């Protein structure tokens, strides 16, 4: 009998080793077809008209002139008179046509009259937001060591007094302000789909993170059963949390296709993509911390604000303070409604902001007390929110060695100066869940020995196909290239959406279960043939063999020929919270350290070295795991040094909604990245844990802290652009 549990550490044939992706060549060579690449016969293109105003009411809309443009085949209004529009770029109308030129002229011909309304766009300015009545309370919570006495009536007033008392007891009280602006997802492949109908059935080639979960989102608005919808996505050019839905534009493409009786391709233009299809909420904070002489935080009191768009939400107060869990704390949050589209989940929702808004303050404790930041972080590990004190401690030691922290460290602003250039170190730490999502897989072993596994999952670009192939091959004693992996169709057994680092756990669970079940059926057949009890048989190196006497064996192919005419089919199913498992778990830690150089004359920050130490339970594909961490760090460097959404304060226009203006790093900007995958037996035994989010969380705080260490000055708000660095230096000099 094949065991469901993972092989013991060090005993696996494939798992944990370095593997190229099975679809790497297809992606690198351009053979991989993304939703954007889909071309159907007789297809028409469609584009949408974005509203030029950030806040307005539609007075009238007339699409008929568009229909007069030669080559335009359809034009429809997506808003009606009286509709209020709350952000620039909101979709007003759609035009389908034979050529891009015809569509552009059609869009230009549409006549819309707007009544322009007041705009608010300054999410960093709490006072202005209050004046404009754009704020709302987004929660407050207080935790104190002393219980509130029974006789107290005004609890908030008592808490305020208690906090003041606690601050007085502290050796030092430090105040700071920090911020992290809205950024976009900037998926290289924008949102969109190509939709076609076969009779009453819809096929949507959709750029999605959610192959199994979007059919109903099309079916509902179209008034058809979900059984008549097939979602297809072989490859996705970036999602990062923004591509879980069918979205208005998806449903619009499907309904246009139905109406025209022709396939319709509708992908968002870059600027409309950025204006509509997802951003990460901003956070700005005022913090007061009280510490003892060693830099251990005893009291935390903070108020943060920011926006998630017109809804007026803000970074969850649950991540403040982040990871560290001081004995006394009060946190308050205020949301600001700005004229911008609603935010969407962005890789590790809330956590990168939590890290910046909290751990810059912990680093300022080190700066104010003149203590090594490493010491302050280490001393505060006594109280962490996830109980991983010892994991952090070990990870910090490893990271410090890789960074050569002790040799390079100097107190904030007191390092050697080489002309106008100073260098500095900073660190941060993070946490994430990463539990497996629900997943069902169907595995077939054909009588000719070929193997295929099908599940309605998707590859976000991180190597999901390869993970599935490795798990199945490991289980069946085959090579990964012997396993055909079928994902990307909603007709396959359902698997969860790829969000929150849940995919690797989910697909490993279902694939391992399906492959083990299939193998056990096969072993039953082989047992009779070899005259060895099935319980003693194992699949290894392309053979089924007697584990006690490996010479008694049969090749994989011959074993499969025992199946007769029909393939053997087995299912593997994992349901979070219901399926008992040793295969996966959740909760990771992670420590990152940054070394930067700063040019004090130009404000330029350059990455010198970055160290990421990360646990993720059991590693399936070491190479992909390292890539995943590298990618997260690069994305983190991007928002630490370059990225931000810039809204015009007067008009609410999204000023930098093109790749030419939205700054991103190039490879020349990321410096040396050292990845250490932390996998002691204690981690391996936990099984698979998701890795997608964790590595993107700490870079903002670590880099901000490194710049502060280099210059001795806190640049309060990310990204740390030359402007912000020079402004902060000028302010510090008075």
């Amino acid at each position: 009998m094949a065991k469901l549990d993972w092989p013991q550490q060090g005993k696996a044939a494939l798992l944990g080793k370095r593997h190229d992706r099975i679809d790497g060549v297809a992606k690198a060579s351009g053979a991989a077809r993304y939703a954007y690449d889909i071309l159907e016969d007789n297809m028409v293109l469609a584009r949408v008209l974005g509203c030029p105003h950030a806040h307005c009411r539609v007075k009238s809309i007339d699409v008929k002139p568009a229909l007069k443009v030669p080559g335009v085949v359809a034009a429809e209004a997506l808003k009606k008179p009286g509709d209020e529009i709350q952000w620039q770029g909101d979709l007003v109308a759609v035009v389908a046509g034979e050529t891009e030129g015809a569509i552009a002229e059609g869009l230009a011909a549409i006549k819309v009259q707007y009544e322009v309304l007041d705009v608010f766009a300054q999410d960093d300015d709490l006072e202005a937001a209050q004046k404009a009545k754009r704020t709302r309370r987004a929660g407050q919570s207080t935790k104190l060591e002393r219980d509130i006495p029974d006789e107290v009536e005004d609890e908030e007033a008592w808490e305020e007094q208690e906090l003041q008392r606690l601050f007085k007891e502290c050796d030092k009280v430090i105040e700071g302000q920090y911020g992290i602006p809205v950024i976009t997802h900037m998926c290289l492949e924008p949102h969109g789909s190509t939709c076609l109908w076969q009779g009453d059935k819809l096929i949507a080639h959709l750029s999605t993170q959610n192959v199994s979960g979007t059919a109903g989102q099309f079916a509902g608005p179209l008034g058809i059963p979900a059984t008549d919808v097939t979602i297809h996505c072989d490859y996705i050019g970036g999602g990062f949390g923004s591509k879980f839905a069918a979205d208005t534009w998806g449903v619009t493409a499907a309904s246009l296709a139905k109406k025209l009786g022709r396939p319709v391709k509708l992908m968002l233009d870059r600027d409309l993509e950025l204006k509509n299809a997802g951003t990460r909420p901003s956070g700005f904070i005022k913090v007061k911390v009280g510490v003892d002489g060693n830099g251990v935080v005893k009291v935390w009191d903070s108020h943060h604000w920011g926006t998630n768009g017109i809804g007026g939400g803000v970074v969850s107060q649950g991540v403040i303070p982040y990871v560290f869990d001081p004995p006394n704390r009060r946190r308050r949050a205020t949301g600001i409604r700005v004229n911008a589209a609603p935010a969407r989940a962005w890789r590790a929702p809330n956590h990168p902001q939590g890290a910046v808004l909290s751990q810059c303050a912990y680093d300022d404790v080190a700066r104010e007390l003149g203590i090594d930041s490493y010491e302050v972080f280490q001393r505060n590990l006594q109280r962490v929110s996830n109980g991983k004190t010892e994991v952090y401690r070990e990870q910090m030691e490893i990271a410090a060695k890789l960074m050569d922290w002790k040799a390079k460290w100097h107190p904030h602003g007191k390092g050697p100066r080489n002309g106008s250039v100073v260098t500095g170190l900073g660190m941060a730490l993070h946490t994430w869940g990463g539990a497996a999502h629900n997943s069902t897989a169907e595995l077939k072993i054909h009588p000719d020995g070929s193997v295929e596994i099908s599940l309605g999952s998707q590859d976000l670009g991180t190597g999901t196909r390869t993970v599935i192939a490795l798990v199945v091959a490991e289980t069946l004693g085959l090579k990964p290239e012997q396993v055909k992996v079928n994902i990307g169709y909603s007709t396959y057994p359902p698997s969860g959406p790829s969000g929150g680092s849940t995919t690797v756990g989910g697909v490993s669970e279902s694939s391992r279960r399906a492959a083990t079940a299939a193998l056990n059926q096969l072993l039953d057949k082989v047992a009779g043939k070899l005259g060895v009890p099935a319980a003693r048989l194992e699949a290894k190196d392309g053979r089924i063999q007697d584990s006690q006497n490996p010479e008694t064996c049969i090749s994989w192919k011959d074993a499969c020929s025992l199946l007769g005419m029909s393939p053997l089919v087995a299912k593997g199913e994992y349901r979070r919270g219901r399926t008992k498992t040793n295969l996966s778990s959740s909760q990771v830690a992670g420590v990152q350290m940054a070394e930067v150089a700063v040019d004090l004359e130009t404000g330029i920050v350059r990455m010198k070295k970055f160290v990421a130490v990360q646990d993720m339970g059991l590693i399936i594909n070491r190479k992909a795991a390292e890539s995943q961490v590298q990618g997260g760090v690069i994305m983190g460097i991007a928002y630490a040094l370059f990225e931000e959404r810039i809204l015009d304060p007067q008009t609410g226009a999204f000023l930098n909604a093109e790749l030419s203006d939205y700054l991103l790093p190039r490879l020349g900007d990321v410096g040396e990245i050292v990845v250490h995958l932390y996998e002691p037996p204690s981690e391996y035994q936990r099984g698979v844990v998701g890795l997608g989010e964790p590595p993107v969380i700490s870079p903002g705080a670590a880099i901000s802290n490194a710049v502060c260490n280099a210059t001795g000055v806190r640049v309060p708000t990310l990204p740390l652009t030359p402007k912000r660095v020079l402004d902060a230096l000028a302010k510090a000099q008075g």
Partner: protein
Amino acid sequence: MKNFEYAAPRTEEEALALLAQRPDQTAVLAGGTDLVPLMKKMLVTPQRVVNIKNIDSLRGIHAHSQGVTIGAVTTLDQLLEAPELEPYPAVKQVIAKLGSLQLQCQMTLGGELCRRPQCWYFRNGYGLLGRRGQLVEQGDNRYHAILDNQGPAKFVSPSRLAPALIALGAVVRVAGPGQQETTVPVERLYRTPKDDHQRELTLSPAQLLTHVLPKLSQGTLNATYEVKHGTGPQPPLATASVALELDGSGVVRSARVVMGQVAPVPWRSREAEEVLVGQRIGYELAELAGAAAVAPATPLSQNQYKVQIAKTAVKRAVLLAAGLETGGL
């Protein structure tokens, strides 16, 4: 982009004839790195596009007794590799740090000089002056002008090569309208618009920039220093190009200092030049030149930092031209 009529003439005469018919509705296409995005955003909606890349006489680099003549459709990577341009590090330094191999290979010299401003109010359809400058003045002006910004124009001149070519005393040959032909200093290609009817380029729509001719006496030291946020192709925050003639004893006989990305035109700093002339180049003198260059700056609400950056660019360009260490990152 809208539909348009496309022409690909083989000679200058044909091109000029195509431009002459409806100059205001005609756009000249070379590398397309600027025109195509402008057309996609419908900021430019020509009825006719004239592609001049197939005109042989506009291509190539020719050295002759008076210097070098460079065809307007020569691509920047060709300039980078051209031995004829060895005396002009001020030009090559810009191209080498363009930050995009694709742009290097696609962008033409003439096109680079005629780019439209990257000002985000302009690129988002609010016009080049953005409500007579009010949008920029009260809006997000972090990348806008710190000099010559007291009128309605507050964008910055986008060309990265113009400052270098002006420092090198370059002229351009301009053909058209019709049979006419003139020679214009690069400096005079640009102006600060006073109202919405004025473009920032002085060429008329019926004219064609055909060749660029750097003028430089032998042995002139020259360099460009760009302060860039990151290694990508985005515009630098400020740049400076410097050309210095020294006498036998190392004293500066003449100097040209031209800043980029700081004003609606490439900004020649006579103040910095005066500091340099008659002195020997050294660290302190370079610092003084930088300070003199930004002394007249009038920063807007959010671009005070650019004063410091422009100052540093001038200082480091002077040092680089003189073959001294610039320092910095």
